[in-house]
């Protein structure tokens, strides 16, 4: 029983990272209709901003999270203004936008590598750990799950209770109708770019704190994040929440399965994708489709 609880907690940790990182990806897809690959580097960038504040043992995690949120949000806003918006205005199709986002990602990744070095870095605080019944938890994990819950509930309220949120849903649902009904599409897009990337930056801080920091931090987890986004039904926030935890569970139970049959745990990604394929066969538009 206790074994099960610890695995559920692991799934929640993995799922929380995916949720934070995937939120921006799925929301901006809803607005701009292209998968923004630079999100991998937004995650990484957030991790490095966090490092500025957490390279000392007494660094403050909340401060690092806040800094990463704003800095990454701004980075995304700039990249939208300088790169994606001009392309969208020239009616660029999916492929050029996607390739542009990959290129932008490379620029950010290599800039980070040159500025901070390519070697792995570590946050210096050692997180306090304690036993909750049969489960071992650290303060870091509680913060992470808390942040994911806060994001989930906050975004739910935003999307359903505020004008801005309703406008985001309106554009995602029917862009032309939204335009003629007087919604300022630019303003909504700026807001979403900032917010979504901000959460990705926060995901970067938590990922780096739980493992280590390197210029490929985001790139390494981009594939499962895309899987989560697609599994949830790309563009759908509620599907994303379900998918994040489903994939977290699949990966964590998958490792146990792999191990039981004597395979290396590096195949865990294969299990996640097996789940993805199975779901898509029965629900081609994802869980929320």
């Amino acid at each position, binding site marked *: 029983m*206790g*074994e099960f609880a*610890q*695995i559920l907690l*692991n799934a929640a*940790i*993995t799922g929380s990272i995916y949720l934070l990182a995937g939120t921006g990806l799925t929301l901006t897809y809803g607005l701009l209709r292209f998968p923004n690959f630079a999100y991998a580097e937004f995650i990484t960038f957030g991790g490095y901003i966090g490092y500025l504040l957490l390279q000392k*043992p007494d660094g403050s995690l909340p401060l690092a999270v806040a800094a990463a949120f704003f800095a990454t949000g701004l980075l995304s806003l700039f990249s939208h203004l300088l790169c994606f918006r001009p392309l969208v205005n020239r009616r660029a199709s999916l492929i050029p936008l996607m390739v542009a986002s990959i290129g932008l990602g490379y620029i950010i990744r290599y800039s980070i590598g040159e500025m901070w070095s390519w070697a*792995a*870095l*570590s946050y*210096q*605080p*050692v*997180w306090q*750990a304690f*036993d909750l019944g049969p489960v*071992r938890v*650290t303060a*870091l*994990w509680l913060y992470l799950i808390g942040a994911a819950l806060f994001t989930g509930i906050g975004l739910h309220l935003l999307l359903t209770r505020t004008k801005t949120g309703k406008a985001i849903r309106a554009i995602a649902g029917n862009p032309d109708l939204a335009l003629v009904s007087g919604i300022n599409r630019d303003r909504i897009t700026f807001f979403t770019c900032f917010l979504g990337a901000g959460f990705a930056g926060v995901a970067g801080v938590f990922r780096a704190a*739980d*493992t*280590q920091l*390197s210029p490929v931090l985001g790139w*390494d987890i981009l594939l499962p994040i895309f899987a989560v986004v697609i599994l949830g039904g790309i563009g759908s926030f509620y599907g994303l929440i379900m998918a994040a935890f489903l994939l977290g569970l699949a*990966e*964590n139970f998958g*490792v*146990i399965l792999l*191990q039981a049959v*004597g*395979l*290396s*745990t*590096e195949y*865990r990604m294969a299990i996640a994708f097996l789940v993805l394929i199975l779901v898509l066969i029965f629900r081609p538009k994802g869980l929320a489709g």
Partner: protein
Amino acid sequence: MAKAVELAVEEVNDAGGVNGRQVKLYQEDDATDPATCLTAIKKLVELNDVKLIIGSMTSGASMTCGPYVAERKVLLVSPSATSPELTGQPWRDYYFRTCPSDTFQGKVMAKIALDEGLKKAVILAMDNPYGTGLAKVIESALGGEAEVLTVIKYDPAKKDYLTELTQIKNLNPDGVFHIGFNDDGRVIYQQALNLGLDKMRWIGCDGVYGTGMFATKAAAEFMAKAMVGTRPASPEGGKYEEFRQAYLAKFNTEPEVFCDTIYDATKLILDACAKTGTDDPAKVREALLSLGRDYEGVSGRLTFDGQGDRISGVYELWAVVKKGEEYAFERVRLIEAE
């Protein structure tokens, strides 16, 4: 490491050379890369007409170059390729090594566990020849005296091991053998500390040795609390001390790891040339096999088996200690393995 070869060659030349001639040393950099190494060896053999080579430095490069030297019938003596997988290769006729295979390190790791009275163990190994090779040796060396609950193979590039470590937590062994490198080790020990796995004994290997581990404070703390480990070491005193003094006098720095085995490789080759009065690789090979019986080298007593593998090794048992705010590796004792 090349400096130790220069030292050996200089000593021999100062004493009049071999068979009345001075020894000429050619040097190429193999960059520990198999392809670079093969190019370098081809150049030495085809262009410089070299017949006796000290190298390759790594097991991977040895795998690539072994078949070539066997075909050309030139002799390769490696001071530092430790993979057990090199044992029993079909091209082994012209390939020796003066370092012990990791088989011995695995035996030492198992012995440490048994000495501490561990009964139930988990092996956590990176999924590559080094990791799976050592894991196999440890499992068989435990010989049922301690039960191996499971062997977990992981991807060293993945850098998130919470699930693997949770499994260890759930199996609740007395001890964990870990075969990894610095990069993955840091993450594993940080996450193991978070999961409270510092209550069990962890036994590491040479791959996780190095002050680079302390870049992550949580990893350093974990190692100080829970870990001991092994690594190939030079013997203390005796011929090694003479070598160390000579090396210090000439280069003004301490000899590094494998400097002793590369010095022995050089001396053994030159002794074999002197014994046979030629530099013909086929004859030198025979002479090496007969010289390599209880040979008193600077790296300890050296005996080759029939295919040119060393059959004993000296290992250090290390631990991590905290001194004030700093962490450091400390030698517990030396262990000789046969």
